[in-house]
């Protein structure tokens, strides 16, 4: 029976011009969204590549210069330009610490338009601790990004609702339902079959559109089948959730107009209202201290420490006897830096509370949002997609930690050598610390997001059963 009903429902849909137009439109929108995502990722990767190339070129030049200087083929430059001086390498030839795009980065812009994707930590300075926000296009911030995540979260439910809001009511209004119900069938099975078919059609088209768009923009989803499957699974569950909402509303037996209004209201609540309430309350409950004040305090502490550099250095030597000069007759060429290194510990200690406040507020905001995301399937999907795209807040926090850790590695490569008054050699370029990005240690939200969406599914099923039990046949038919 179900097969039969599905066959003719399919025929009916095929001949409905609007349905076809809607679906073609969706394909177009998906292609456009993936193109936008691709453009952003390409920009991001191009910048990183450019920086890395610059770095390699500079390394090569410096190694060659050191070689020439050692062979006395060139006159020695001023000390501040000498490539043999470690401070010049540590300061002028920093490594590029880059956050490479994940294979499916195109699907969701996430936080990628708020943060930088590379940093060049030097042997000294605050840049890597503070400078993580990039200015972004205010117009884009206003409207959000037109990426695949936007299409799935905002537009897809509207498509589902447009496709299903009147599945029962239109038959009732046109009068066909009376003939249908005079046949030996169960209304609910029949209605569910109709919606199931529409769900399959729409999901197939959505999945095909997504995979088609990814393919034409050269995204290797076949090579990343795991992530692609997760993406499809998440979107499918989200579509199914909206179909079930529509099933539930249809079961109430109201008119098409009233179904449409009710469903749009549900959409507004889940997709617009709850997310904006969560974001508003996050800001009100856990306001983040001003970043300007934080930077100001940092600089004040730094200025103070720099004034007392000599004194601090003496204390530092007491605490790190291994760095104390062995040969006191010879002046260390890096003496200016050594004072600063010593001072940086003091600065860090005094700024730590300010930094902690700032980070704690951010963390609290984030964990508030993380907990409340279970209130809306739209947030869950956004979170899951960001997770797959590697553009979630957790990814950026992790990248920031990686940069800070690498900055430390970089400094600690140079500090002992500088205290020892060593020089840079051409072959040392090969042994400079390097960073390679990995997102493996970012805790994945995906399983929880999927479970959350499944929980919403269960709720809707329970709601449908409740309405079904409560509702009488007469209500649905309104004879």
């Amino acid at each position: 029976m179900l097969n039969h009903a599905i066959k003719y429902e399919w025929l009916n849909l095929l001949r409905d011009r609007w349905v076809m137009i809607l679906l073609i439109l969706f394909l177009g929108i998906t292609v456009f969204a993936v193109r936008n995502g691709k453009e952003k990722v390409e920009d991001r990767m191009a910048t990183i590549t450019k920086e890395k190339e610059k770095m390699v070129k500079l390394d090569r030049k410096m190694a060659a210069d050191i070689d020439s200087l050692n062979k006395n083929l060139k006159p020695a430059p001023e000390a501040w330009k000498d490539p043999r001086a470690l401070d010049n390498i540590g300061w002028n030839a920093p490594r590029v610490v880059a956050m490479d795009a994940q294979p499916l980065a195109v699907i969701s812009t996430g936080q990628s338009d708020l943060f930088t994707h590379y940093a060049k930590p030097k042997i000294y300075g605050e840049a890597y601790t503070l400078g993580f926000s990039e200015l972004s296009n205010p117009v884009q911030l206003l409207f959000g990004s037109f990426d695949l995540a936007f299409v799935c979260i905002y537009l897809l439910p509207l498509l589902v609702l447009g496709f299903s809001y009147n599945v029962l009511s239109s038959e009732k209004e046109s009068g066909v339902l009376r003939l249908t119900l005079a046949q030996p069938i169960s209304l609910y099975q029949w209605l569910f079959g109709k919606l199931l078919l529409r769900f399959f059609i729409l999901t197939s088209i959505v999945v095909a559109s997504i995979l088609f768009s990814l393919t034409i923009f050269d995204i290797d989803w076949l090579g990343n089948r795991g992530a692609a499957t997760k993406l499809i699974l998440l979107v499918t569950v989200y579509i199914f959730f909206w179909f079930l909402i529509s099933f539930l509303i249809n079961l109430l037996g109201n008119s098409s107009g009233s179904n449409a209004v009710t469903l749009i209201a549900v959409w507004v609540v889940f997709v617009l209202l709850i997310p904006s309430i969560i974001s508003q309350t996050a800001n009100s409950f856990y306001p983040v201290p001003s970043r300007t004040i934080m930077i100001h305090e940092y600089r004040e502490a730094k200025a103070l420490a720099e004034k007392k550099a000599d004194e601090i250095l003496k204390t530092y030597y007491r605490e790190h006897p291994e760095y104390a000069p062995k040969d006191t007759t010879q002046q260390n060429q890096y003496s200016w830096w050594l004072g600063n290194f010593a001072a940086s510990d003091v600065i860090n200690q005094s700024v730590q509370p300010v930094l902690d406040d700032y980070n704690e507020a951010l963390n609290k905001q984030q964990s508030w949002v993380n907990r409340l995301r279970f209130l809306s399937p739209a947030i869950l999907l956004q979170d899951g997609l960001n997770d797959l795209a590697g553009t979630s807040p957790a990814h950026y926090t992790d990248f920031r930690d990686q940069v800070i850790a690498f900055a430390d590695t970089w400094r600690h490569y140079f500090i002992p050598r500088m205290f020892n008054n060593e020089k840079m050699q051409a072959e040392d370029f090969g042994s400079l610390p390097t960073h390679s990005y990995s997102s493996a240690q970012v805790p994945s939200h995906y399983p929880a997001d999927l479970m959350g969406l499944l929980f919403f599914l269960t709720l809707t099923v329970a709601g449908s059963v409740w309405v079904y039990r409560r509702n009488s046949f007469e209500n649905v038919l309104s004879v």
Partner: protein
Amino acid sequence: MLEAKQLSKTYQGKEALKPTSFTVNKGDIFCLLGANGAGKTTTINLFLNFIQPSGGQALIGGKDVVKEPIETKKLLTYIPENLMLYPNLTGLENLEYFSGLASKKYPKEEFLKFLTEAGLQAEAHDKRISTYSKGMRQKVGIALALAKDAQVLLLDEPTSGLDPKASNEFSELLTKLSKKGVATLMATHDLFRAKETGTHIGMMREGSLVEQLTTDQINHTDLEKLYLKHMN
């Protein structure tokens, strides 16, 4: 084949159908006459299990329509005043679809035969329903009765709004079906058709069946007089 046993329906305290009993046997065409709101459609809706009876039973083939809705619906075909079908499907496809819902499957030629037998001209078979007139749609309903091999026909003012020729054709089809043994319950305002086509007549007023007679007991004029007597 069709039996109402003290069947009644009350809507929010208002009795739409007072306890009513009647029987429609195989081959009978039982015409329900009465003003709007007399309870004709309520009676038919009760047999269709579209509404729940407040009292009594509606039986089709001896089975209670409330307890065995699927079984009883296998036996019946329903043609409302304005039979609506899927406008994007052809007459043939609609017939195939609704027959299939009743688990009736035939080769295409059989379905075409049913449509022809129901009086639908061959060139209309493959045209979409959106191009059909009301009379043509009613014929698809009759074809459905043939395809379902229905033993019971429930008709709710099926000829209202049809032109006299179409109305006449429809009546002929009913007679044909009745000869095959189909039991028909038809609500109608058309006294002439009721007398011509029907075998039995029931008159309803304010939810009660006030008169039951067979059509051979009465002529046209007397039928009209009797009807007006009950209505006033």
